[in-house]
């Protein structure tokens, strides 16, 4: 990255109504009321945010893996651009693939093995598919203990059994010591779409309710603490779990579900932003209504992280019509994984594209996509 990107960025920015905003310039310009001027700037930003994203960096940085803005930009500008086709574009799949590079490989509540199975099962399930078969590809580092590999594979077997899927094909590669970090896994999965409902975050409509299936942020905070770099201990487990059972129950009770997502990298905040952007609607979430375990809140406070951005590996975010909200929450709570399900917000017409939060303090603020990566390699 060189200075030139700054010039380029400046060239792209639209001319404004109030150049030369030094104190001098401001006094000379006839100005609109402050509220109007601020609104003009907000509108200009809104237009800037709707432009096609562009990767400005010359090299991949850790931010590109965060699940936040940089990840979205990378996917839209590099991958979607190259592979563009009608099935890929909505980013809602019935054939999915995901790679797992979590560090450490073993953590309270799970390991890279069950994470790799559950993650792909969940990707299929939230698309409304019944997951059936998985592939598993391993990249192993020279010197990786076979006992650890067995442990990982056994945990994959157990997770597959629990989710009712089979691992039907696989691949193994070994790279020299230092060229990988122990063990990486890729899983791909196929499922069948049981119903012709058109699920997708673009289906969200004003008046819809947004529901999470349980406390958020457990996985991310667990991984962070498991790395032992922070000298903080808490009685926390990853929430890694297969969501297909929970989702089947929800779809039976509420066939009119509009969209589902599992809140992985980027957390619940990222999904709310995807809803607002894809459906061009506003989202109003209520901080008090969002379930967060005290341990997760405490650790987040200490570390200056917002739990809304912390990854989960077994939590569902669902958008349902407002009148079906109670039915949906009841259906989720009937399943062990959804006992603390709650409505956390509403879709609305106002402020399209923007997620707003009513804070517990009683104020309002925006919840934007995450920039940068507070915590790499969580899944």
């Amino acid at each position, binding site marked *: *990255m*060189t*200075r030139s*990107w*700054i010039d380029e*960025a*400046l060239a*792209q*920015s*639209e001319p*404004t109504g*109030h*150049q030369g*905003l*030094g*104190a001098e310039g*401001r006094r000379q310009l006839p100005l609109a009321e402050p509220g109007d*001027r*601020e*609104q003009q*700037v*907000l509108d*200009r*930003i809104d237009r*800037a945010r709707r432009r096609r994203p562009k990767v*400005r*960096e*010359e*090299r*991949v*940085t*850790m931010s590109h893996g965060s699940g936040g*803005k*940089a990840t979205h*930009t990378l996917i839209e500008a590099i991958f979607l651009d190259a592979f563009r086709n009608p099935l890929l574009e909505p980013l809602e799949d019935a054939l999915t693939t995901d790679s797992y590079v979590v560090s450490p490989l073993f953590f309270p509540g799970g390991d890279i093995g069950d994470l790799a199975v559950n993650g792909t099962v969940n990707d299929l399930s939230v698309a409304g598919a019944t997951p059936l078969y998985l592939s598993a590809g391993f990249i192993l580092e020279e010197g990786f203990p076979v006992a650890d590999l067995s442990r990982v594979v056994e945990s994959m077997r157990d997770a597959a059994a629990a989710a009712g899927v089979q691992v039907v094909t696989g691949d193994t590669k070994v790279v020299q010591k230092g060229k990988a970090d122990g063990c990486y896994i890729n899983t791909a999965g196929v499922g069948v779409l049981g119903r012709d409902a058109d699920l997708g975050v673009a289906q969200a409509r004003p008046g819809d309710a947004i529901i999470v299936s349980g406390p958020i942020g457990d996985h991310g905070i667990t991984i962070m603490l498991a790395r032992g*770099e922070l000298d903080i201990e808490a009685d926390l487990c990853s929430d890694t779990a297969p969501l297909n059972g929970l989702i089947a129950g929800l779809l039976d009770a509420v066939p009119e579900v509009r969209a589902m997502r599992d809140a992985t990298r980027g957390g619940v905040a990222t999904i709310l932003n995807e809803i607002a952007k894809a459906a061009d609607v506003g989202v*109003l979430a209520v901080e008090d209504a969002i379930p967060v375990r*005290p341990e997760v*809140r405490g650790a987040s*406070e200490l*570390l*200056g992280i917002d739990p809304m951005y912390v990854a989960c590996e077994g939590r569902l975010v669902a958008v349902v019509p407002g009148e079906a909200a109670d039915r949906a929450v009841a259906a989720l709570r009937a399943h062990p994984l959804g006992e603390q399900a709650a409505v956390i917000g509403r879709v*609305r017409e*106002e*402020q399209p594209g*923007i997620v*707003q*939060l*009513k*804070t*517990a*303090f*009683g*104020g*309002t*603020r*925006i919840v*934007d996509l995450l*920039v*940068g990566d507070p915590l790499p390699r969580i899944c």
Partner: protein
Amino acid sequence: MRFVDEFRDADKAHALAAKIAALCEPGRQYKLMEVCGGHTHTIYKHGLEDYLPESITLVHGPGCPVCVIPMGRVDDAIHLASQPGVIMTSFGDMMRVPGSGGSFFDANAEGTHIRMVYSPLDSLKIARQNPDKQVVFMAIGFETTAPSTAMTMLRAAAEGLTNFSVFCNHVTIIPAIKAILDSPDLRLDGFIGPGHVSTVIGCRPYEFIARDYGKPVVVAGFEPLDILQSIYMLMVQLSESRAEVENQYSRVVPWDGNLVALKAIGETMELRPYFEWRGLGFISHSALQVRQKYAAMDAERLFQVPGVRVADPKACQCGEVLKGVLKPWECKVFGTACTPETPIGTCMVSPEGACAAYYNFGRMNRNRVAEVAQS
């Protein structure tokens, strides 16, 4: 959660807001500066402005440690990190601050080893684990973080570590406040004083603001009710035409500061003759450097540091934003060319920066929000 929820109580906030509104003289406009970036972050994160009447404007001050680091210092740090055998350690906030050739993250993608640490002491751990490398800690911050850098140096000296050094960029808050008070651009009615800085330096150093400039100061804590109460205390002073230094954050801030911390800073560091602040220019005696006694731990003495002054991009108006002359959205590149993902100015990088706080949390028309929230 104990010790957090008590300070975020919406009922108490409503009660305070009513008392604040009652103190506003009709037709008078109030401009209060929160000096510290931590306060700016709290104000936006909790939507505190929703509780304030239109006549009170909060002006965001220069107290964001990342925001005041000039581009040239970032370039110097990357130059240090590029020396063979160097591992640099840095607080996470610094990682995305753009130098003229990119940020620490970009430098890492090109091969430097700049590691994020949560405490400077973690640098010593890395130094012990890598005896064949030189570990350089990128020290930034006001008096808040200077003691932890000082304590780390003292511990390294006690342990006899020879492969640890500090690239010292610590700055001091009082000269910056004075620069703002002397700036002709801005008329302020009072200051919400920095809380964490004051845990170290105490409240006494602010007395000149009340005595010589006639402005009230209330040292404030970082929870939203702390700030709201401090605004109330400022408004009481203004309504009684008083100008005094008061301490709202007395549960943490001793009037005379933390003598142990001050002693550690004094032992290891001394004032620089001058230091460049981003957007504010050179301010004399506004920063700290490593004392001669600890020269073996001073990266600026151990390595050749280019020290080239890099001018800010022309369009960047960080200086005006840091001084509170411009609101973030009044900068002409705000939100279009300069965004948190590709920041041009430092104020857009740190979560404590006024531009980042406004972009991430406050980018909306509050009047309209209030109407929507009520309906």
